[in-house]
């Protein structure tokens, strides 16, 4: 009995952990995943608040390449040509200011808050 129960408890613990994991850790990547559009040399929305663990998609809708770079260098995209996207998952809470590495007057901010 003991021999059966222990693995059962372990299983339960593992299942619980797995459930929690799937509920919180994997990036939120549904169809409604938050998106920052890059158009007319601007990030829209310029400021966005998301929960920790959220993946934000940046999409370049301009005819000119752009580059998404965090002010604190915590993330940096490759050059995004027209229609290209860049995804970054924000795990830590805080304010993450970013700018375009090619046109640094273009600026935005992602606020990560529970």
């Amino acid at each position, binding site marked *: 009995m003991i021999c059966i129960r222990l693995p059962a408890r372990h299983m339960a613990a593992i299942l619980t952990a797995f459930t929690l994991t799937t509920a919180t850790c994997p990036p939120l990547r549904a169809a409604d995943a938050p998106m920052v559009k890059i158009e*007319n040399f601007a990030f829209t929305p310029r400021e966005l608040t998301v929960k920790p663990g959220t993946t934000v998609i940046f999409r370049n809708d301009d005819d000119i390449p752009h580059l998404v770079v965090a002010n604190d260098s915590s993330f940096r995209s490759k050059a995004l040509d027209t229609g290209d996207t860049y995804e970054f998952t924000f795990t830590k809470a805080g304010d993450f200011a970013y700018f375009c590495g090619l046109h640094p007057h273009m600026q935005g901010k992602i606020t990560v808050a529970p």
Partner: protein
Amino acid sequence: MTHHHDDESGRDGISRRHALECMIWAGTGVLWTISGGVPVSLNLLGAAQAAEAMATGFTFLQISDSHIGFDKAANPHAIDTLKEAMGKIQALPQKPAFMIHTGDITHLSKPAQFDNAAEIIGGAGFDVHYVPGEHDLIDDGNGKAYLGRYGKGTKGAGWYSFDQNGVHFVALVNVVNLKAGGLGNLGAEQLAWLADDLKAVSASMPIVVFAHIPLWAVYPEWGWGTDDAAQALGLLKRFGSVTVLNGHIHQIMQKVEGNVTFHTARSTAFPQPAPGTAASPGPMTVPAGQLRGLLGTSSVTVKQGGQDLAIIDSTLA
């Protein structure tokens, strides 16, 4: 043109505004000269003097913003318009001594784009002195592709200088280490190099500085300027004649400030809107038939033994 040095009233009478009007109206073939730091339209001096400047000087040619790889609505065939530009340069009656390219050779820094540009531009057989635009440094190696091709003999991110026919040319790079919220950037290392480079140059020697982003505040709201340009210009104050040639904004702009004349060249790929006249500085799509009137190159003539530089902007139309 000597009398223009002496004739203050005549020089002012022609007026900068008038020269600008000509530039806008004529679009092509406007020729102007710098006398003691003030530009005077050679068109207004008369054909004979213009011809003399052309005959006794040497000419170099500025090409800019070829954006090889660009294929969007504003010009689906940027490679063809570069070929046209090079064809016109090869057909010039007075061959340029060399060319400068003020950056954005490619659109996306891809090897094939650099190769295509090199084949078309190099095919004309001129020496070409390059500076990078921000579009030339976006390979995965953050500029290795450009420096691998054009970095030989340069310092830092690709800056250098050389002398030709009594003119000191300075090629600057203001498209690296751009800061959030900032404009173009030269950086402390390059400015220190510039100060050292200029030490041995006589104040009477004409200076031509070229870089991609304008070294003057054309329109900071669109990023059209360079944050630490004032420090570079401070180093150039003691020189009698300074000409600053830039690209980046895909249209002709000029300004005179003391001893310095600023001039930006057209692109060979696509036009961009005049400052503040559109939602963004992105490529401007114009009706078919108007595109080539908004693309072009600039030819600069240096008169031997003088301080006068004459610039002719020519369209592809």
